[in-house]
């Protein structure tokens, strides 16, 4: 399924980040993508299943959640090191990354959600 990913701030995730950015709470609240109900149904994605999100820049496994509100074609992710796997490293003349408009595909996966440590290992590999 093709979507545009838009990142956002969630207060519970911000709180978890303040308290412990290596903690399970922060991972649970960060490594997640909110999908439109009909989009998810069409793609056969169930609430709570692991999905692989891929952009031109990178890929990351997160949990899919179905939104209460409708937003076909859009998917929302809390701003975090997980969403940052997808943000293009290439920027325009402003040198401001496009954090809130990322073209991506989403598909069901059996792969595991990476921990912060996994993401760090990938950075230094």
């Amino acid at each position: 399924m093709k979507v545009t990913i838009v990142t956002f701030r969630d207060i519970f995730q911000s709180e978890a980040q303040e308290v412990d950015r290596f903690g399970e709470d922060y991972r649970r609240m960060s490594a997640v993508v909110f999908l439109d109900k009909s989009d998810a149904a069409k793609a056969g994605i169930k609430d709570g299943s692991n999905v692989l999100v891929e952009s031109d820049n990178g890929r990351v496994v997160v949990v899919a959640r179905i939104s209460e509100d409708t937003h076909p074609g859009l998917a929302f992710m809390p701003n975090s090191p997980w969403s940052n796997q997808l943000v293009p490293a290439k920027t325009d003349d402003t040198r401001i990354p496009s954090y809130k408009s990322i073209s991506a595909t989403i598909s069901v996966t059996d792969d595991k959600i990476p921990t912060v440590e996994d993401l760090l290992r990938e950075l230094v590999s």
Partner: protein
Amino acid sequence: MAVCTGCSLLCDDIEVSIDGRRITKTKNLCRKGFGRYRSLASDRSVPRVDGRQAGIEEAISRAAEMLRNAKRPLLFGWSCSTLEAQRKGIELARRTKAIIDDTSSICQGEIMDMVIRKDIPTCTLDDVRNYGDTLIFWGCDPSSSHPRHMSRFSYFPRGEKLQRGHEEDRTAFLIDIRTSPTAKILAGNFIQISPGGDADLIEAMLAVLDGKIPRVRDKKAMISMMNRLKKADMGVIFPGLGLAYSLKGRMDRMKALVDRLNETTRYNVIPMVGHYNMRGFNQLLFDETGFINRVSFADGVDHGPVYSVVEASKSCDLALVVGSDPISSLPAGIAKALAGVPMITLDPHRTLTTELSRVVIPTALSGIEAGGSALRMDGVRIEFDPIVKSEYPSDEEVLSKILEEI
């Protein structure tokens, strides 16, 4: 009363009960601010040099040595430090002929630049509370990012000229992509746009102001909103990250709208700055160099996109990171470049950046363990004293020692 450094509202009506170093009860802190206070006891960083634990003094000396030997250092972060620490940071950048940049470079820099240069009119949040009768929250979700924004200043409180509160005296519009928690409160005045739709919306608003028919689906709603906006005694626009990213490189269109609105009544702009003292850094650097961010002192003062954290991460030979976690907040491709550079990090907490740093210097949590001053998102200076004793030095103290040793 204590001050909360959890966001750029710098709430200064916080009541805290303390037992030794333990915070036993707080009043008036929002969930996010309470998280910052709780972090006093969680996952503090430990001093480290070249991968092994060390003393703070040794870490400082090693940092000074690395900075002395660097050819093209980048000094980054700053938005979570006091004005006093930031001043030392700029001095350190001059002394080491470094590139200095802050988090505004990847968020609100463009619009903050206009505000600080006075290219766009602004006011204080106290003015908003007293006189701001028409509000536009644009590409932001204050309920989540600045939880007390609407209750302390912008929408709900009684003000000098607005005694009847939000139900009768104030009108607030929200322009956003997502049906956010704030959209639930402002449901009747929520204008939902598509990603990147901000520029088109501005053109439609300008069209109505020029008496033309706007090219939008719901023409009636647009015209009714503009009629309301024109009736403001004092309007205020709060641009958030949604607007900053959608309109990057075209922020002159926002200025065009604000200028046009100001032809008939007063409109001000206060950017929704995230970190507690980003504005302070931008103002200080501007006062010293004429630029709010992205400055190089390699040869006098130079400014430009090449000195942005995004570019400098790839070109620097050393990074000093102060109170920021760029490894977490930069796009992974850029974080990867930065991870390949020797880093010195000052932070109260263990972060993704401290994990990859060659030198880590733990510092006091400002507002709780260290005093100082900062500029609120509206530019008002707020001073604070420490409320608990700390075993850690402040950013300012660490930077002073590094300066002495260089």
